[in-house]
């Protein structure tokens, strides 16, 4: 199959994932409190799963050795927490990988 067709198939699958719950529309207006709590847990749970795997695993899911990334990640995390600034978080993280990694 041509690479372009593979892109199109992946795009269709991705769009179906994005539209999945949105397509239910109005049924999401009055949901039970327990379900509302579960929805509020999605951002912290999903984001930390992605952040942790990108820091600790390689692209083929084998373990990644400790290096300047992990130092920079801790600093970026603390900066984000203390300053509440996305910009400072990103700048401090990138500054450390550049300074230590070169």
């Amino acid at each position, binding site marked *: *199959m041509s*690479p*372009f*067709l*593979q*892109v*199109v*198939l*992946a*795009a269709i*699958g*991705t*769009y179906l*994932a*994005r*539209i*999945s*719950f*949105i397509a*239910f*529309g*109005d049924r*999401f*207006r009055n949901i039970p*409190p*327990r379900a509302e*709590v*579960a*929805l509020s*847990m*999605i*951002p*912290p*749970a*999903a*984001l*930390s*799963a*992605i*952040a*942790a*795997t990108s820091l*600790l*695993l390689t*692209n083929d*899911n084998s*373990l990644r050795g400790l290096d300047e990334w992990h130092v*920079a990640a801790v600093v*970026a*995390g603390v900066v*984000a927490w203390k300053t509440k600034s*996305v910009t400072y*978080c*990103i700048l401090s*993280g*990138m500054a450390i*990988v*550049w300074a230590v*990694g*070169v």
Partner: protein
Amino acid sequence: MPTVSRRTAAFAGVRKISPFMVIAGPFGLIYGVTATEAGVSNFTAIAASFLIMGGAAQIALMELIGDGSSWAVAVATAIVINLRFMLYSASVAAAFADFPALLRYPLAHGLTDQASIVSLQEWQTQKDPRYRLWFFIGASIVFATPWWIGTIIGVLLGGEIGPSWQLPFAVPTTFIALLVPSIRNRPMLIAAIIGAGAAVGLAFLPSGLNIIIGALAGITAGTIATPLPAAEAAP
């Protein structure tokens, strides 16, 4: 209720997403280089950034195509990595229900990690559907622009970008910057810890599947840890 103009709302979305736009450009560059090295045509490489709009999945797809994997494995891997968008779809569904039905379908395509999380944070305090709609339009469409531009530059430059640029670190920094403000109470912290631990612990699963199962474990843990009636239920 005082109504805010569309422009004010859209501009607020652009402003909130702008730090992530700085990262989206380099990330597009990485993807563009990966796609070129996989040997796909420039057209296919660039079209993917418009049609899929998910960096990690696109990089995996191109690497698999470059390795000569079967199309079924390549496509399935990309889709599994993007299954997390179902979680974002559920998170924003209540707010999207107030948007005009015809707009929901095209706007769903703009549901990236960054645009969904930044919008969810803003929508905590902004309840006006019109404001929410225009905020999301600003955050999602404008955010994608540097991603597209980065892709095109990466495809054209090809292998001239060296590893010393440390561009791949842009990925974890983005997610750290999104994650930290999303932890607002102790159950959410538990959700984050369990989500991370489970995703890494399940590394033997195909890439992407460990993330979604890890996230579901974190969501379950955080929900159990929340006492009912919810603390926020009081008016």
